[in-house]
């Protein structure tokens, strides 16, 4: 199970301003450095955080609003949660598709990137209530990729609750 009660967690809440996206990804990367991630894995984590926070900053609110980033370590993984209290996403499966965007000029790759660069992602959203994006990044993703059928070393760290349900919606 996901260890939400992990005593070692960080919480950062910032206004929905684009200049805060950098702060959020750097803070999570620094926090995750307590696990022995490779430089490449930390870069992937930074991109994933950046995508989730950018989504919240650009899409959640018409005016000012807050974005909360929580991260905690459990076993061989870092878990990240990016939450807003904005308009929510009407059709989450559609929003997760590549190239889906509500803004002209944007690539619509945010969720695709998070999904590709992390071990698991879930998106929970309620219209007019807000959105929470959760993902986990575990050590040794590259090695596991070579032997996908092998032992999953990170199983002791648990999986995201409702992740499968979130994907199937």
């Amino acid at each position: 199970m996901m260890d939400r009660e992990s005593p070692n967690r960080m919480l950062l809440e910032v206004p929905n301003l684009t200049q805060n996206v950098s702060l959020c990804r750097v803070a999570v990367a620094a926090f995750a450095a307590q696990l022995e991630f490779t430089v490449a894995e930390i870069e992937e984590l930074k991109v994933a955080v950046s995508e989730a926070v950018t989504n919240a900053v650009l899409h959640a609110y018409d005016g000012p609003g807050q974005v909360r980033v929580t991260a905690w370590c459990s076993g061989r993984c870092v878990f990240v949660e990016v939450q807003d209290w904005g308009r929510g996403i009407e059709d989450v499966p559609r929003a997760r598709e590549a190239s889906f965007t509500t803004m002209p000029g944007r690539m619509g790759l945010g969720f695709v990137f998070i999904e590709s660069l992390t071990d698991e992602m879930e998106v929970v959203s309620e219209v007019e209530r807000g959105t929470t994006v959760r993902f986990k990044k575990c050590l040794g993703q590259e090695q596991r990729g070579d032997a996908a059928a092998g032992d999953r070393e990170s199983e002791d760290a648990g999986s995201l609750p409702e992740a499968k349900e979130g994907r199937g919606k």
Partner: protein
Amino acid sequence: MTDTQVIAGTLIVRPQGELDVHTAAAFRTDTENALAETGARRLIVSLKNIAFMDSSGLGALLGRYRRMIELGGRLYLVSIPARVRPVLELSGILKIIPVFESEKRALERI
């Protein structure tokens, strides 16, 4: 911050630091201004000094690529650092934009 230079009619832009949702706007404006001032139709974007890029940065690059097509020109990417290559590969952008290892190499070939 974006450094720009024209060599033999080719505009070279060198964005610095992080290319994300916050900095992409300045990169776009700086590049557009330099294109308008120089009238160049060949654009080399050097990623040598890019420390971080996410999908917003990619969007800015793709936007410049489309802009060059509109203008009847071409865009080339050079000096892609190892740390940002995975994101570029994941996006598929390298399948449509020509890449050279350095500015020098690109200037010789284009």
